[in-house]
């Protein structure tokens, strides 16, 4: 048989079993198949009765459970100032979330004086302004050790607390009526502290993630603004007078070219006109005629004499021939064709 408790000398127990008689020696032997501490059975019956009554009253209803704060800034503790439970809680809080302010309301957690002290501690913490959550804790022990947390007054005080209560009483397997009345039951004091506060490591991750989103958001905004700026400046570029100037310059260059070409053309035309005029002139050269035996007569004024009417007797006339001039004097003149304009004087 496996015993649920370690038997020690002086322990008061209640045992169940059968009696055997060893006749030869006259000995009675007790074959025990169940054992429990004296009084535990009665306590357990009491526990079940009270539980049923309070349950029927609605004290343990799920609707009564309040949500717990995610990041409590003020946390109360109801436990023994000297117990290991307090150290476990404080170590857990230090490790996970040292930002919370801890208000300790010490009390006895065992014995007759425990219930009124637990109730006073709860009241004192409820009176503290800004209290976010209260831990009610005690280390492991027997059903009798934990009995204060089954005290009806304590259970009612926990249910009536205006601040949410987390219990961490005994070990995983221990259930007290305080656990049922609390907003949340944790299996141990350490677990109660873990449930009460977030983990700083997770929070740091959360902050890093937010900082990352912050950076990304800024990059996004500046990228958007840069794109917008690029778009506008390229549109401005298109409207720049530089383009207009460039096309004006092109037009000017084109006109200059056409001007040059036109002038060139005109010049060539004029040159060829001059050449042809010169050829024409050459063909009209009077001296060429003179070469053929004609002469040109001019009067003293240099006018060419074309008619007899231009010459009077004794007038001096110049006669140009091919190789020089002959100075002559008019002796007479005869009008041969009076109807015509006149003709060269001949000698």
């Amino acid at each position, binding site marked *: 048989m496996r015993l649920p408790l370690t038997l020690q000398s002086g322990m008061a127990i209640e045992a169940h079993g059968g009696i055997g008689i060893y006749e030869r020696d006259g000995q009675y032997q007790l074959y025990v198949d169940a054992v429990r501490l004296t009084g535990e059975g009665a306590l357990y019956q009491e526990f079940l009765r009270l539980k049923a009554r309070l349950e029927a009253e609605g004290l343990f209803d799920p609707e009564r459970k309040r949500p717990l704060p995610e*990041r409590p*800034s003020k946390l109360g503790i109801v436990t023994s*100032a000297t117990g290991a439970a307090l150290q476990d809680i*404080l170590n857990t*809080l*230090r490790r996970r979330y*040292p*930002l*919370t*302010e*801890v*208000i*300790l*309301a*010490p*009390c006895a957690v065992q014995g007759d004086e425990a219930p009124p*002290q637990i109730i*006073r*501690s709860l*009241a*004192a*913490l409820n009176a*503290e302004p800004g209290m976010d959550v209260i831990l009610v804790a005690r280390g492991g022990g027997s059903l009798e050790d934990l009995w204060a947390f089954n005290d009806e007054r304590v259970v009612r005080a926990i249910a009536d607390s205006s601040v949410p209560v987390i219990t961490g009483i005994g070990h995983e397997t221990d259930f007290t009526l305080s656990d049922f009345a609390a907003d949340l039951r944790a299996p141990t004091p350490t677990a109660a502290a873990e449930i009460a506060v977030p983990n*700083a490591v997770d*929070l*740091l991750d*959360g*902050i*890093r993630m*937010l*900082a990352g*989103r*912050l950076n990304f*958001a*800024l990059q996004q*905004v*500046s990228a958007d*603004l840069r794109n917008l700026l690029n778009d506008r400046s390229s549109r401005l570029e298109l409207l720049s007078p530089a383009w207009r100037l460039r096309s004006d310059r092109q037009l000017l260059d084109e006109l200059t070219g056409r001007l040059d070409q036109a002038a060139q053309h005109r010049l060539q035309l004029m040159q060829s006109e001059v050449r042809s005029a010169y050829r024409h002139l050459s063909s009209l050269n009077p001296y060429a005629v003179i070469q053929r035996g004609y002469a040109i007569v001019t009067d003293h004024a240099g006018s060419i004499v074309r008619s007899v009417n231009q010459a009077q007797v004794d007038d001096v006339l110049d006669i140009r021939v091919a190789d020089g001039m002959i100075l002559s004097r008019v002796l007479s003149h005869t009008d041969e064709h009076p109807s015509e304009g006149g003709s060269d004087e001949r000698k």
Partner: protein
Amino acid sequence: MKESESKLADLTYEQAFSELEQIVETLETAQKPLDETVKLYERGQLLAKYCSALLEQADLRIRQLNPNTGAVETGD
């Protein structure tokens, strides 16, 4: 930024964190002018540093009540 830093010190972790969350939300969803965006960003950076510092450097503050007399003692 001296001004907002001194204001930061007055903020609890919860206040600083929720302001940080709000700023990120704003920057992600709302179109703000550039100078305001930069201001929000810088404020957000400060808040993130402040929150991290609070978490990393904080020391658990413990106060002990004496429920029997109502007096308050400080101690560790």
